[in-house]
């Protein structure tokens, strides 16, 4: 049991992105609640979830923003990339179109986040191997070429879900240890020790509001 006054030492902001229906919300739900959410409605907006994990003996609070995948919201969801320490980019292994769009998601991520943001590619629905439309090898190659971490996972069975979230956190934590990620940068997506006065993710929101007094 930890003896310090805090339950965790860091807050990492994550975003989950990808086409509509690839299972972004189900991945979040599986990760935070350990349950599969059948008949999950389309996300109209940005869902928010949190969980405390442990990396190298450090407790880390993940603040996860699960974005709407619908194309018409694309312009709006771009607001949420800023200040993400981790981006989980999801496609559906049974629908090639969702894989084909990865380039555009990746472009958005690269242009809207900072260089130290860890991007993790998740091929979801690997429980539906019979309906597979994208091979593992192909996606792995795409991930390697773009320097992304990659797993195939299933929000339904829970396979690799934990791993994807934790691996991302490990990589972020590593970046902090190596000094590659500047904690003081406003948009690092990482906060060290919670302080009174608002979290990293919400500070962006606060800024937005400040200018908005019409």
């Amino acid at each position, binding site marked *: 049991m930890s003896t310090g006054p805090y339950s965790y030492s860091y807050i990492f902001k994550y975003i989950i992105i990808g086409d509509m229906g690839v299972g972004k919300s189900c991945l979040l739900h599986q990760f935070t609640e350990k349950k599969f959410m059948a008949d999950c409605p389309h996300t109209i907006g940005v869902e928010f*979830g*949190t*969980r405390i994990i442990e990396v190298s003996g450090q407790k880390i609070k993940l603040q996860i923003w699960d974005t709407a995948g619908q194309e018409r919201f694309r312009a709006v969801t771009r*607001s949420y990339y800023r200040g993400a320490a981790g981006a989980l980019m999801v496609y559906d292994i049974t629908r090639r179109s969702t894989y084909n769009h990865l380039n555009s998601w990746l472009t958005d991520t690269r242009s809207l986040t900072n260089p130290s943001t860890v991007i993790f590619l998740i091929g979801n629905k690997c429980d539906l191997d019979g309906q597979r439309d994208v091979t593992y090898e192909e996606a792995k190659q795409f991930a390697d070429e773009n320097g992304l971490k990659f797993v195939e996972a299933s929000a339904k069975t829970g396979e690799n879900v934990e791993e994807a979230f934790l691996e991302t956190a490990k990589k972020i934590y590593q970046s902090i240890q190596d000094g590659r990620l500047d904690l003081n940068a406003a948009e690092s997506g990482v906060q060290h020790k919670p*302080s009174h006065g608002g979290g990293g993710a919400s500070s962006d929101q606060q800024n937005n*509001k400040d200018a*908005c007094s019409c």
Partner: protein
Amino acid sequence: MNSTRPQMVIILRYDIYLFFGGLFIYGANVSLICEDGGMDNGCRSQLLDSPDVTLQRENIAKGAAPIPARESVVRYQMSMKEDDYTYTQSLRVFVGTWNVNGQPPTVSLSDWLACDVEPPDIYGIGFQELDLSKEAFLFNDTPREEEWMFAVCNALHTAVEYKRLATIRLVGMMLSVFVQKQHAPHVRGIAVDTVGTGIMGKMGNKGGVGIRFEIYNTTMCFVNSHLAAHVEEYERRNQDYRDICSRMSFTKFRPPKSIVNHDQVYWLGDLNYRIVDVDPKKVKELIDIENFDPVLEYDQLIRQHNLNEVFMGYKEGKINFRPTYKYDTGTDNWDSSEKNRAPAWCDRVLWKGDSIKQLKYRSHPIMRISDHKPVSAVFESKVRVIDTVKYRKIHEEVMKKLDKMENEFLPQVMVDTTDVIFETLRFLEPQTKELIIANTGQVPVQFEFIKKLDDTTYCKEWLHIEPYLGSVRPGEKCDIRLEVYVDKRSASKLNSGQDKLYDILVLHLEGGKDIFITVTGSYERSCFGSSLETLANITVPVREIPIGKLMDMELENRKDGLENTVYPVPKEVWYLVDYLYRYGLKEANLFEQSGLHSELIQIRNWLDNGSQDALSSSVHSVAEALLLLLESTAEPVIPYNFHSVCTDCATNYQQCRQIIQQLPDLTRNVFLYLCLFLQELLSHSNDNGLDIKTIATLFGAIFIRDPPRSRDSQNSRTQQTLDRKKANFVYHFLVNDQSDLLAIT
């Protein structure tokens, strides 16, 4: 923004959180929580006693505030589930006490400390009157400590190895705790303290010393005390006990721990209670025949204990040994000095806590170097041992539940729709829709429509949201009014397709998720908001032109103003002016009195649909419609790029004329046409009472419209000067003959 908003503090009643079988308190009263895992009975009961806990809810999601709360909840939960991840193990605890009357250890102590076959797991050994010298009393310094420690270490049971956890001494009171080496890795949180209750309530000739620690998952405290002497001073002894209880404090913990905050307490020492109200001779006789019971009735400690005056909650085993005081040193004979003190059970061992069974309670008469005999007690004490595998599993479960709950405690709302669709919207006709935000979560929700990345406002200019921020309590709802109103500001953008009746609103829940609300509607285009060029180029009413074509025309116009238009002035302008010319020349207050909204709609329909029927509106409504038509265009009559030259040379008529000559044909026509009409109007000022300056000012603002947004940034004085210059500009054209300019066309 956040700092100026009052923080929401929510009182959560603990009965709301009866949670997964156990009592769950999302507690924030961290001062009650013990740092080491909160297993203490004291902590536990205090938590149970606190009915209300306060908690700054919205900071949970932000990760800001109730972190200590979460930590304490984890501890509390773990302590509630202790039985699920611990098992008990019996330890043999040996407790010894001896008042050595200042004597050095000249004999082996093994007859006292190692007289049993089975080696104890824990030793708690206390001495009193270790050193009676002034030196020890005043400076708390004595060579005897080392001598006696050496003697003790040499006399511990030899079957196993021991490790000394701690030794604490205050003047003559010394206490040492040893554990078998095999248990040493499982001991944590060792702390010591002393309490002097001697003269001034401070000096250490009387008082107590204590050692506390955790072994496995059980907390133990040993206290060695030497209470006030003298037969009649039993009240004083009670007081000393109470002082030790209240003043002994292991301050390395936060909050500090007292004796009471331990699972098991072993209290030993020369408690100094005597045998009273009975003839000492009789006592000695009874004791000689080992008939202790009648004598024990006169024991002060037993009496005081029964009266709950001292050692409340403690137990003492049955005494089956001779009084341990007072003997002639070196013998087993009662005190033969002049004082001839009565025998007494001064030296005692008591305990407190569950799962403790006393196996032995005895004195050791064979130890003869002091006027007291040593006493020892052996206990079989059950301690809780953590099953690490089970502990991890349960700890993870608790963490998971908390994560789950933290997510459940995020603000949650339902909106009745995320797609707000308006019917056909027309210029100047507002429409409203309601949106219901219902708080379906467990905490109050602070909501706000926030702007999107790179936007300056949270919604388009044709939309109005009321209220755009607010709070909703759990179970309650809030009606949001969305009003769409297309007016002169937004009409031209909608006409040209630069903007659409489409907006995605971001409804943000503070500390939680965002919901996107899509607002759509179709806009029925009107001549209001169309460019002068477009209107001058279409020969039919606006409504008869396909939308696509209208948009194309607007885009064309924007690229390069058309050289030749079908009409010299837009027919809509002509219709309105003509109407005023026919019916309004002599009307008082024309362009000063406002029109009726319903008539403006009527005029709009008449113009847009090209009705064959005659218009039957009041001239004031028609006048206002004319102004509105001129104000709703994307570009004003005198285009924005002429704005500053017009105001710069407003005093110079010739320069003003030159500017007008440079205007594109259509706008020049419209400008001159309207000026001629105004001149005509002013020529009837005897009837209509119009004032040229008023008209010049009014039309100055309309002809030379300020570029969008520039108006907000200017102070009223500059604006006034600007308005005056515009009036000046127009004035020239109202008082001078313009027929030569018209001839150019």
